[in-house]
Structures are given as structure tokens and as C-alpha cells.
């Protein structure tokens, strides 16, 4: 059974990365603003939000791939990061097999490579050309590569993209397994607004800023979802219900819980007391599932 919401049992759960009021301004606009985020050892934090809401920007800023324009990002000294980006497109002209992909950023022994590939369930693919892999095989290979570094912090940008539903459940099981075995912290971006990995400790919903945050509810607690997803999937998936105190209107203005409308939303404006308003975007219907 899954161990939901139990404090991680690995180490002293030191803070790996911490963002304070971080914002990134590029090409004339704020990609994301006012982000507070902490990932501790053994903890899984999931970022969700519609397209263009700043999920990838937030993750990249957390690990130093992008620099924040305002606010602060603190990383543990000598933090080892394993990164699986949202999109890795390999040019056909570059011949690369899975085994060679493993030592892309650091050398590793044959035994270490084999262990990492086996752990990600792609031990049989070692000799394959990366360009010939399926979506799921490629994601698992990238995951194995990130694992091989024995990272303190694993950052996964939409790890289940291009993977079918059964594959998604299996990948979540694998990610949970990695966390349980290595005790690393995981910062994950989900492509789904409402379904997240069951072992997620904190869900952060972004929409240019932090819209809301909280813990997901286990699918297993709901017999309906249980029936819908099947018993095995229900162990790996959880539902996150959004509790927004404001709504983003189509013209970019913001309607707050008390009915007032402002040009922008400010984090200090009426925080989390009224839960009346949910998203109103077409793809964002929490009750439709």
C-alpha cells in the first residue's frame, strides 16, 4: 500500500531548494511571478497549471537553468541535480545509443549503468539507438540517466508525456520507488490539471503566479474513482481539487472571491478564505472527470 502524507523517513529532510517570491521576466513579460516553493529531501512536489502558466520556467529557475529576475532561489551547496526536461529532440545526425546517453554529463561504470537501466525498467534497451525508441522507452531512458547521477534532487518535467495510461501508472510507481529507495527530493511537473501522482506531498497550481497549493486526495478514498481507474491505478493516482480565491477572466483581469475585479492578482489579496471560484477555462473542469 502507498504511504500517503507520512513524513519521509529518509534522513533529516533537509531543504534542497527554496524559492522566495521568485519571478522571471523575459521578452517583455513576466513568465511567472511571486513563487514560493520548497523541496525537502524525500519530498515530492508537483507543479500543475495550464499551458504557459510558468511550470517549466519555475522548475528551471529552481535548478539554476534560468536566473530569477526578482526574488531569491537558494540551493543546497553542491546539490546534485538529475534533470529530465520536457522536450529532448535528438538530431538524427548524432548517433547515440542508450548506453552512451547514460554518460552524457558524467562518467559512470558499466555496473552503475546497468543498475540504473534495470531500475528504470529499460535494461534490455542498452544497445538501442536513442532515435529508434518509443516515447515511453525514451522517457524511461532519460529517467535512468538522471537516476544514474544519484541525485539529491530529481526534476521531472512532464515525465509521463507521450506515455499511455498503463505506462503512466507504471512510471509513477517507478518514481515512487526511486524516492523510497534513494530518499531524493522530487520536483515534478504534471501535464494534467487534476490528476497527480498519489505520493505527492504538495501540489502547487501555477497560472503566472501561485494560484493555490495543497495536498491531493487519494483516489482510493473514493470508490467511484477507484472503479473508474482500476485498483492498481488508484494506488498511483490522486485527485487535486483546486481551491482558488479568484478567477482569471478572459481579458486578463482577475475576479476575486468577494466579487471585486482588479487588473492583476496580488498574492496578498484575499488569500484562501473563500473557495467559491474555480477555474473557468474550458479544459479546467474539476468535476468533469
Amino acid at each position, binding site marked *: 500500500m502507498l504511504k500517503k502524507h507520512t513524513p519521509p523517513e529518509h534522513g533529516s529532510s533537509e531543504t534542497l531548494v527554496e524559492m522566495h517570491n521568485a519571478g522571471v521576466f523575459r521578452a517583455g513579460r513576466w513568465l511567472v511571478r511571486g513563487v514560493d516553493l520548497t523541496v525537502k529531501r524525500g519530498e515530492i512536489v508537483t507543479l500543475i497549471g495550464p499551458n504557459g502558466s510558468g511550470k517549466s520556467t519555475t522548475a*528551471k529557475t529552481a535548478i539554476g537553468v534560468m536566473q530569477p529576475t526578482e526574488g531569491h532561489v537558494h540551493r543546497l551547496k553542491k546539490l546534485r541535480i538529475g534533470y529530465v526536461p520536457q522536450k529532448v529532440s535528438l538530431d538524427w545526425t548524432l548517433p547515440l545509443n542508450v548506453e552512451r546517453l547514460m554518460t*552524457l554529463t558524467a562518467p559512470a561504470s558499466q555496473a552503475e549503468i546497468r543498475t540504473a537501466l534495470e531500475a528504470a525498467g529499460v535494461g534490455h534497451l542498452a544497445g538501442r539507438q536513442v532515435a529508434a525508441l518509443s516515447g515511453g522507452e525514451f522517457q524511461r531512458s532519460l529517467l535512468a540517466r538522471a537516476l544514474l547521477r544519484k541525485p539529491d534532487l530529481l526534476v521531472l518535467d512532464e515525465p509521463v508525456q507521450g506515455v499511455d495510461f498503463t505506462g503512466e501508472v507504471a512510471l509513477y510507481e517507478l518514481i515512487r520507488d526511486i524516492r523510497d529507495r534513494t530518499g531524493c527530493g522530487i520536483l515534478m511537473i504534471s501535464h494534467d490539471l487534476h490528476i497527480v501522482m498519489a505520493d505527492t506531498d504538495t501540489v502547487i497550481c501555477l497560472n503566472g503566479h501561485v494560484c493555490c497549493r495543497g495536498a491531493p486526495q487519494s483516489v482510493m478514498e473514493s470508490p467511484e474513482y477507484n472503479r473508474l481507474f482500476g485498483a492498481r491505478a488508484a494506488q498511483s493516482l490522486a485527485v487535486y481539487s483546486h481551491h482558488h480565491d479568484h478567477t482569471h477572466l478572459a481579458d486578463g483581469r482577475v475576479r476575486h472571491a468577494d466579487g471585486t475585479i482588479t487588473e492583476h492578482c496580488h498574492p496578498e489579496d484575499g488569500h484562501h478564505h473563500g473557495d467559491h471560484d474555480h477555474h473557468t477555462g474550458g479544459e479546467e473542469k474539476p468535476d468533469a472527470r
Partner: protein
Amino acid sequence: MLDDFFTRALLAGVGLALVAGPLGCFVVWRRMAYFGDTMAHSALLGVALSLVMEINLMAGVFLVATLASLALLFLERRGSLSTDALLGILSHSTLALGLVMVAFMTWVRVDLMGFLFGDILAVSKLDIAFIYGGGAIVLALLVLLWRPLLAATVNTDIARAEGLNPERSRVIFMLLMAAVIAIAMKIVGILLITSLLIIPAATARRFSSGPEMMAVLASAIGALAVLGGLFGSLEFDTPSGPSIVVAALVLFLLSLIPSPLAKTPDRATENRP
């Protein structure tokens, strides 16, 4: 032995091919063919400036090619025009500037054809020393920087997230390119330098299962093209630079013929049980 002009030409050409192979692979992987062309075209401006300032030709070409690549980086950052358009502007304006400057210099006799298409048969012992000395430095740096360069080629964000420095790799790669252009100018000429970078690498692709293998094969194929081209030029009395490029093209076309030796990724996986 080095007193024979043909032996000197062979030595110089093979030396250049050995360096151009691995560097050419990166040009192909990073889709920088046009970029290489731009740097090469700026070499004529380098020649003109070195003649005016009376400095060593190779040093002048190296400096100007480096400046051209830095100018491109700067203009890219400003982000007003696409890289493609910037390359087009920089490539032809530096070439034209060089041609105009050379035309003004009535006091020196400049063998323009030699600079544009190479004059490998006029390679001196000092040139050979430059090619092998400079080439050894370029190859040594490439070996040292192989991992960050390759990682940044596959994915810049992964490289940066995992503690490698893609920006530094990129700048050093440009310096290496400038160095190779400087030593290649005399052998194949400004207009043909990129072909010696790209064609052997493209030929090597079909026979390679890994990046390192492709780099080594590209060197070998480039050396073969130099040998074929020079012997052909001696036999048929054709210009040496273009003959080397034609030989490289012939090898490339031969590599397209289906053979059991060539393994495309798909076939390699199909053969697995």
C-alpha cells in the same frame, strides 16, 4: 622528403583532415553549417587586414573569424533579426569587404584565387608546422571538452542543470572553429573550408553507432578525400582544393549505396532478437 612540394601538400592536407573530422561532426550535429561558412568567409577580411597591418596571415584570419563569431553572438542577443538573416548579412558583407580591401591594395600582389580556392601546392614547411602544431592543440582541447560539448549539443538545459557550462563550451568551440579556418585557408580556400568540415562527417554518419566513432571515421574519410583529391589533381591537372572537395563528394555518394556495412538505427534494431 619535405623538399618535395607534393609530399608537403599531402602532409598538410591529411593533417587538416584529421582536425576537421571531429570538429565537422559538431558542425553537423549542431546544425552550424551556415555559421561555419560565415566564419570562413570573414577570413578574406582577415587576410586583407593582416596585409595592411603586416601581421601573420593565419593570426589575422583567426582574429577576424573570432570577431565575426562574437559579433554574431552579440547581435543574436539583441534579438532584432533572425540568426539566419544575421548570418546572411555577416557572411557576404565580410567577404565583400575583404574583396574590396584587397582591390585597394595595389602595392601588394595578392593571389586572390589562391585564397578563395586554396593553394595547397604552395604549402611551406612553416605552414606544415603550423598545421600540426595548431591541429594538435585543437584536438587536445576537443578531447578535454568533449563531454560538455556533446552534452550541450544534445540538450543545453540538461548540461546546465547538471553543472556543465554550455556557454563556455560554445565560446571555446567557436575559437576552435576559427583556428581550423585559419589553418585550412591555404589548403582548400575560404570558399571550400566548410565542405571539408561537413562532407566527411556526413559520410561517416551511416557507418557510426556512437559519436566518438563518427568523429574518428570523419577524420579517416577526410584524409582519404585529401589523398584522392591530390593524386587526382596531379593526374588530371585540376586545381587541388576543388579536387579534394570532389573526392570527398565521391566518397559521400559511395556511402549512400546500400551495403551491409552501413547500419541505420532502424536496421540495427531490427536485427536484434
